[in-house]
């Protein structure tokens, strides 16, 4: 048996062919990892029971491959599909947000509306009004007589904020959010953005609301 594959195998390994030699266990002995070769092309080894080629097989047989290399290939392909589709969804979402903000910027500004007279808000007090439409807002007159107005809806989850004029803050009781009274900036707690500012115009004794400025920072 000159051309015996086991003999060649042992010669490649340089194993002592005697059965009781130390490098050898049983008949075949121990082997290094680099002496084996796979029998078939790992990309094309599934044989269907009817022996017809893979192109003629039903679709499910390609999706549920029996052989491990092909199964791993399908898992890789599914992962690539997942990556592409998920990033595509993110791109579509960003485009949707951009389109919405464009539409919002082009919307006509709310009209000018009289909301109070100066006599209704002495220094150190606040009053509620709605502007534009039914949106609740706060008109606040600070100790030095300066007037500010903000939307009352907290930018976190739309709870009503409470003005604390002596402490110089607007406090949201729901989750302990705090806004600065003078500017409406979010200074503590969960609110992500400052309160929208209602622009005011004082003509004589009358206070008018002229617009809303939404801010992101």
């Amino acid at each position, binding site marked *: 048996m000159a051309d015996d*594959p086991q003999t060649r195998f042992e010669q490649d390994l340089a194993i002592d062919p005697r059965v009781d030699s130390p490098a050898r266990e049983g008949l075949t002995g121990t082997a290094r990892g680099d002496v084996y070769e796979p029998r078939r092309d790992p990309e094309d080894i599934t044989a*269907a*029971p009817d022996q017809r080629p893979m192109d003629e097989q039903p679709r499910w047989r390609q999706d549920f491959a029996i052989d491990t290399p092909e199964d791993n290939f399908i898992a890789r392909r599914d992962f690539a599909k997942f990556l592409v589709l998920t990033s595509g969804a993110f791109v579509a979402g960003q485009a949707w947000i951009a389109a919405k903000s464009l539409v919002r910027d082009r919307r006509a500004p709310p009209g000018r509306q009289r909301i109070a007279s100066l006599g209704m808000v002495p220094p150190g007090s606040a009053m509620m009004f709605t502007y534009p439409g039914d949106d609740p807002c706060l008109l606040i007159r600070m100790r030095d007589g300066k007037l500010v107005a903000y939307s009352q809806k907290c930018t976190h989850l739309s709870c009503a904020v409470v003005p604390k004029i002596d402490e110089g803050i607007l406090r949201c009781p729901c989750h302990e959010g705090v806004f600065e009274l003078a500017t409406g900036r979010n200074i503590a707690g969960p609110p992500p953005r400052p309160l929208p500012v209602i622009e005011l115009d004082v003509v004589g004794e009358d206070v008018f609301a002229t617009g809303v400025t939404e801010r992101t920072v």
Partner: protein
Amino acid sequence: MPVPQHLEFFVDPSRCIGCQACVHACTECDTHRGDAMIHLEYVDRGTSVQTVPVVCMHCEQPTCAEVCPADAIKRTGDGVVQSARKPRCIGCGNCVVACPFGVPELYIDRAIMMKCDMCYDRTSIGKKPMCATVCPSQALFFGTREQALALRPKSTPTNKFRFGEQSITTRVNVMVPRRPATPMQIDVTAAMDERPRNRSMRLPVLDTADPFAEVEV
């Protein structure tokens, strides 16, 4: 690391003496301690003591993997059909019903199918499967085809089986007698009704009485 291609499994049922050494060697294995993946079956227990060891035949078209709804049975590139993957197997038992050789077994307590994987931890590093190392009559032989042919001059290995309409080619070979004629394939369903022809020894002790009849004491 794959099982080397020149090493093959040869099962010679006519040499089996029913000593259960393979079963107990299989039970010792750490990967499934206490459970034997090899089955030792009686051919016709009423009239004969002939046993046959049943290992996984590692089909070219594995029926167990074909019917698996959870995609849990996979074959590696070297042609070895692996046991069910634990994260995938749902313990439905489809493979148990489908396998024509009756190899897979369902372990209800851990809800998983386990079957012979040709001792992949051993054969993939060039060692023999556990059952083949202990078989005293070499009914289970693992080695090169040249060695098998030299050891069994009156037999020839075959790996083609027919179960009714289904043809199966396997990686594991079964030794069949050369005479009177070397079969092209083993027609298992047709052979089920066949009686043994020569060299068979009948033990007619049970012919007169029904062995499973209830005995009145």
